[in-house]
């Protein structure tokens, strides 16, 4: 009885393999990249970047579990701290930009032209 249905049930009841997390993470990362490419609103590009960071965080945590190492989670902690700093600065820049340009569209921002 146990042997019979093992194939299908085993696949659904067993532990989720690392590759599932990696595929999910890759998909999230790709979505983030697409967001950065197709959007023009600086805030949304910023959000897409956060999405990419989170996709990477997911791989870190997954590796941490599957390799039996704590380093991945520690790095995620650091990524979050740095992300917080990055957001604080990034949003401050966007606010400063908006004051000068009345826009957050990246097409309007080209002052650094060489």
């Amino acid at each position: 009885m146990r042997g019979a249905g093992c194939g299908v049930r085993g696949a659904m009841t067993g532990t989720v393999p690392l590759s599932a997390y990696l595929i999910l993470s890759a998909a999230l990362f790709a979505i983030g990249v697409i967001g950065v490419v197709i959007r023009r609103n600086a805030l949304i590009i910023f959000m897409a970047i956060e999405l990419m960071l989170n996709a990477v965080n997911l791989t870190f945590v997954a590796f941490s579990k599957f390799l039996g190492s704590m380093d991945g989670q520690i790095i995620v902690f650091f990524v979050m701290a740095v992300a917080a700093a990055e957001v604080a600065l990034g949003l401050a820049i966007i606010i400063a930009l908006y004051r000068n340009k009345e826009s957050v569209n990246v097409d309007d921002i080209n002052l650094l032209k060489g």
Partner: protein
Amino acid sequence: MEWLLFVPLAALALGTAAFVILLRNPIYCALALVGTFFALSGLYLLLQAEFVAVVQVIIYAGAIMVLFLFVIMLLDVGHEPPPWLRRDRPRLLLGLGLVALLVLELAVAIGSWIAPGIRGPYTSDYVNAVGNTQLIGRLLFTEFLIPFEITSIILLIAIVGAMVLARRQ
């Protein structure tokens, strides 16, 4: 059991992530991103990383995204025209092509990769016995003390930088 939690969470993460980049109203995008963060937090719990899961909610959902919402509301950002109506379509297509290549490469990389199995000392039994948070705390204040301190300096600099940038002259 794990799959029963993984599949919905993964679907939620992917769906909300797609909304982030597709919705036109920035507020909706931000809310969708909060959803993604919750889904990821759930996945972290599934991976027995309770501390990271909770910190994910506190930092990303509770602080970073609130800040985003705050700025979006403060700046009154209008809706953006959909990408397919934009003038610079060649560049857009080039970008999407590159993304397709990237996805292909990622697929190849994941497909050809062989999982090495547990190597470190932190097996789930050990982590459960000592406590995830306790382990992270111990590592942060021993092995990763210098990065930890540097992080605090980075945050301090970010605070000062944000003040200087956002202040009205």
